[in-house]
């Protein structure tokens, strides 16, 4: 800081270079940090407040509840299958489009913006009307939820995998492998997948983070028959608010964990190639 504030020593400097102070910038950044941490302090205080001082009893009770494991398990299950479906579908389709139908790439790019145009509420309104009548009665089942998540999380998978496919020269690699007699399945699994592995991992983490926090589609499509973690947090608040706040804190920590892993993987990526 002091380095910046010092006036220039040499004679040939710009006339404008007067000493700068960073007072309001520091205030602004401190304000952001305060604003982003303030609700976390609220969660911590609310979940540890007791009649006489501090208690961690709510944490013990909340984590002792078998319902917690059941509903977190539901969310993790949905997350796992969503990751599998979205990533396999996106990787394979993008590879195929790169190889055989480059004219499709702008269309795929457009599709990756659709969740902003068709948010969870709107998609839920449409899906619930298709899948609640007899020929395809799927509301209340995890299959419909996973299908909906797979479509909604396409943008995350698309961005991540497109980034890593661009770096690799897919066409040349495929032609080289073909001329050496590899089958298309071999090419996909042994050559293309390793190229996009970092994209697959970061895409998977983003999808997981989304599914663990998703509330609207779960409320619309499954409700109480396949209760997910966010639905559980919301329901818990009406009769055990402290437990619900403990769970909210857990959700923040898990989002943090995913962000940290993402930074870890994206920083490692350049050194690998």
């Amino acid at each position, binding site marked *: 800081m002091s380095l910046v504030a010092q006036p220039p020593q040499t004679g040939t400097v710009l006339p404008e270079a007067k000493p700068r102070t960073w007072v309001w910038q520091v205030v602004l950044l401190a304000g952001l940090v305060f604003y982003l941490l303030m609700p976390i302090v609220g969660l911590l205080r609310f979940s540890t407040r007791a009649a006489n001082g501090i208690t961690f009893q709510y944490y013990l009770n909340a984590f002792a509840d078998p319902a917690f494991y059941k509903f977190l398990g539901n969310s993790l299950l949905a997350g796992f299958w969503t990751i599998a479906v979205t990533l396999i579908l996106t990787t394979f*389709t993008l590879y195929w489009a790169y190889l055989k139908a480059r004219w499709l790439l702008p269309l795929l790019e457009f599709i990756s913006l659709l969740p902003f145009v*068709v*948010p*969870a*509420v709107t998609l839920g309104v449409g899906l619930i009307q298709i899948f609640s009548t007899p020929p395809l009665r799927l509301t209340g089942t995890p299959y419909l939820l996973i299908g909906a998540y797979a479509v909604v999380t396409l943008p995350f998978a698309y961005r991540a995998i497109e980034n890593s496919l661009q770096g690799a020269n897919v066409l040349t690699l495929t032609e080289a492998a073909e001329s050496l007699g590899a089958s298309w399945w071999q090419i996909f699994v042994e050559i293309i997948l390793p190229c996009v592995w970092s994209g697959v991992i970061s895409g998977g983490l983003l999808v997981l983070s989304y599914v663990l926090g998703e509330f609207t589609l779960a409320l619309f499509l499954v409700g109480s028959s396949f209760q997910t973690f966010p639905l559980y947090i919301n329901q818990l608040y009406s009769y055990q608010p402290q437990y619900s706040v403990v769970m*909210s*804190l857990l959700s923040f920590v898990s989002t943090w964990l995913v962000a940290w892993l993402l930074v870890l993987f994206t920083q490692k990526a350049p050194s690998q190639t």
Partner: protein
Amino acid sequence: MSSAVTTFKQSFWLRYPWVSTALGLAPMAIALSGLLVLPIVIMVVGSFKADQGWSLANYLATIRGEYLRAFINTLMISLLTAVLGGVLGTVTAITLAWGPFNSSPLLTLASVAANWGGVPLAFAMIATIGNSGWVTELLRLVGWDAYQNGFTVYGNVGLILTYTYFQWPLMLLLMLPAVQRFRSAWREAAESLGATRSQFWRWVGIPILLPSMIGGVALLFANAFGAQATAFALAGGALNLITIKITFLIKGQTSFNPGLANALSVEMTVVLAIAVTIYLIANQRARRWMQ
């Protein structure tokens, strides 16, 4: 014999290359049409249907009374949080990129905050600026009781403060690439030609950053306009928002009316499509400076 089969196979795939192309793209096409296109079609068709066949009754109901008020309220809140988050995020991005600060811990925090949201955020805000939240109580100690002065976390102002929690860091993350690629040569050129700080902003800084800013604000607007979980957990049906109205039209016992929900959803989609189009156009403009 086996070689004859292989030759046939190869020649088939070579003769009709579009077959393999189509087969490879089919899974994605089926998933998208069944789970994205079909719901939209059903929604649009359903919005024009009432009890006795085709009609505009659903749309007429949306431009009256509580639904019109909800629409206007949602628009106002989304615009306010988009502009508020947009200005704060842009200024923060400039401060981080051009100042002598180590930005990486703050950026991790920002990306967590921008991605978190939803139900847990609503409860965290209640524990912070709710009636017995710690900030509220701190302000009471200092001598200002927000709840005596009409403030409540369950109202529109509370919702705006809550949305700012993810809008501010989201704008910071959206603007940072544009600000970082802003060439210091441009600033030095302006300075060496004798531009004052306000002249620099008027003629160089703002014109170059404005397209990215408009694009970011449009995305923030869409983000707030389509949001449901945070508001639903914060105040249930008390907040007058389109997404909340739709939720009760679909899930409610007494107010069940899918036709009306369809019409509101179509109107929402139109507004969001406009916002995303603005984002796309602004983004294209912004790229001119980023070669």
